[in-house]
């Protein structure tokens, strides 16, 4: 293997000190031969580019192509004393795209997780760990933690709505703060801001919602008007109320069939609310959250899954069109199925993989079957609410 410029360097620290519960920071590298230090810099030529979708792309950190802005060990020590850089306990071999992540015990406690073993963590000091990994890995981890924290905030919000215990609003705000601290994904941040806003409206100082919108949200989401934000909050509150009704135990006089019917009705009603969410990624995420909750609360029999699988397998005349996509994008009924049948597709640029929740072939096949069954976009929810259910049709 040929030597790369990175072989000459090791990562010995990161820029700045510990500011919050968790943060991604730029590494500081040491040139092994000369004992000179440098920060990982992003070449300006790659800085500030825009993706075709108009999103800002952050530059990938890399070592400087020349020894510009390098400093001596004595200078590095001095900068470290001034908390301008923090040394790692042990150096790490340098590589392209490296970033440093630090995390505190308070964040780990809040996410109820331990440090992922796939990364080499070092103890910086008591209650603070640090690791060096590729930017994409670090971003993924932080977004995952952000989602865990957001889900906890959502659960607490449900409790507030259910119990009217407004004292819990501060806990939701704290969880939202932590979630915003780690989440980088725009969609995820939008969803967290909704939880944060709802928590503020349920707190003893709801007028702070004005601060949240004026000072923060307008900055990050320039197309969100005040009215739209309020509508989003109302919609989230309504969804949470419906979720609570979904979780309720069946009455003693209610048979299994009635319970199932009621569940379908609930989930269909939720689906109709989701139609109001214009941002497709946000809608996916809300669908997934409903489905996850539904799976947690309801036992799905193997027979149910097999029946749906049979319909999917026996289908023919497959054809993808906008209607099919629309049915699936906003229809949480599909997420009623076991996660075994609906695999995550991760991110894909292909049009077929617009759904982030199921693989493309299942996605298309299921959609076409639903269309073949006479269930049209937007009608499925209404029919289910009125007199029918997907479960009934599958049995027929």
């Amino acid at each position, binding site marked *: 293997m040929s030597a790369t410029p990175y072989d000459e360097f090791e990562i010995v620290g990161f*820029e*700045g*000190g510990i*500011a*919050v519960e968790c*943060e*991604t*920071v*730029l590494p500081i590298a040491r040139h092994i031969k000369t004992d000179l230090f440098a*920060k990982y*810099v*992003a070449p*300006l*030529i790659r*800085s*500030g580019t825009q993706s075709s979708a108009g999103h*800002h792309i*952050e*530059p990938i*950190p890399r070592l400087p192509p*020349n*020894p*510009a*802005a*390098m*400093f001596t060990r004595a*200078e590095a020590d001095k*900068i470290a*004393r*001034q*908390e*301008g850089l923090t040394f790692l306990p042990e150096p790490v071999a340098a590589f392209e795209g490296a*970033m440093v992540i630090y995390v505190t015990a308070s964040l780990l406690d809040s996410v109820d997780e331990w440090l992922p073993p796939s990364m080499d963590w070092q103890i910086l000091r008591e209650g603070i760990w640090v690791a060096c990994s590729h930017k994409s890995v670090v971003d993924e981890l932080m977004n995952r933690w952000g989602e865990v924290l957001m889900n906890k905030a959502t659960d607490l919000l449900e409790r507030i709505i259910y119990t009217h215990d407004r004292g819990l609003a501060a806990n939701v705000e704290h969880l939202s*703060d932590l979630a*915003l*601290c780690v989440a*980088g994904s725009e969609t995820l*941040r939008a969803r967290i801001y909704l939880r944060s806003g709802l928590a*503020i409206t349920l707190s003893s*100082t709801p*007028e*702070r919602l*004005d*601060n*949240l919108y*004026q*000072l*923060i949200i*307008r*900055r*990050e989401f320039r197309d969100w008007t005040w009215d739209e934000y309020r509508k989003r909050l109302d919609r989230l509150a309504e969804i949470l109320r419906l979720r609570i009704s979904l979780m309720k135990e069946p009455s003693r006089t209610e048979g299994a069939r009635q319970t199932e019917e009621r569940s379908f009705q609930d989930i269909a009603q939720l689906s109709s609310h989701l139609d109001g969410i214009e941002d497709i990624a946000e809608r996916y995420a809300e669908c997934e959250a409903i489905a996850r909750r539904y799976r947690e609360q309801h036992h799905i029999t193997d027979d149910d899954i097999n029946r749906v699988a049979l319909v999917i397998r026996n289908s023919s005349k497959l054809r993808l069109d906008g209607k099919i996509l629309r049915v699936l994008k906003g229809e949480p009924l599909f997420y009623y199925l076991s996660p075994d049948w609906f695999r995550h597709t991760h991110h894909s640029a292909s049009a077929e993989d617009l759904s982030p929740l199921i693989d493309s072939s299942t996605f298309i096949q299921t959609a076409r079957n639903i269309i073949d069954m006479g269930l049209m976009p937007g009608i499925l929810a209404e029919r289910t609410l009125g007199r029918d259910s997907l479960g009934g049709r599958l049995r027929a």
Partner: protein
Amino acid sequence: MPILTNLSSRIKDDAAWYDSYKMNLRKAREIAYRMPLVHVSGNSSRVSFLQLITSPSEEIPTSADVYGYCSDETRAAETMLELPQCVYFYAGRSHPAFGKIALAFDEKCERHHSGSATPFDTGGLASRPEGKIKTALPNHKPETIRRFTKASTKSLQVWREVFVHFLAAYFSRPVEYWEGRPFKADPEELMSRNDDWRAWVFEVRFYGGQKITDAVAWCASRGQREILRREALAHPPVGAVRSPLQRLLEEIHEISPPGTPFYCDELERWVREKVGV
């Protein structure tokens, strides 16, 4: 002979240099008169940015000891160079060593200040025992450094015009001020003996505090931005009165709103867009 001394006659003696200078002059003028001043704040070992913006003065303070904002080294350099206690800026450049939030101020903020500028970082030149910025000066005695710095110093009122000629003369294209390095050596060899851009950046100094909310743009690390966000949300709005922090968040352009580890790069990107480079 400091960097800017007899510059025009030196250029005229070199035909190729003169051609390059003439070619760059118009663009350099456009850039120089629109160039924002950049100040990076929030060094965690000293007064935090949050403390600054929530203090009654709402200012970036001078290096005076009483504010606890700048280091002893900064004050030692000022004493050595016989500079007053200052607020420091770089013309269009941003260095993360000074903190986690970068603020940009436009040319209007200079109007109510007295101050000065030099085509290098004075702290780097005056640092002891050896200067961080290497030179061909005969020695590093305080007197030598002081004399050279004084000869290189321009008043706040004229620095932009001087910067026009500096940019046009010392860089093959003005963009090299950010992306590269000077292509011509200066008599004291600051530009050829150093690799750190602080050896050829224009340092601009105000002799009084600068109001933070006069900034026209800012960019912060994720952590710093999170600290500001939490503080702003902790307090309900009081009628129409906005605190300086609220004004910063609400009224001043924030580059990369969720915060970014590349806050200095991002601010420089914004500066370059603003000046058309």
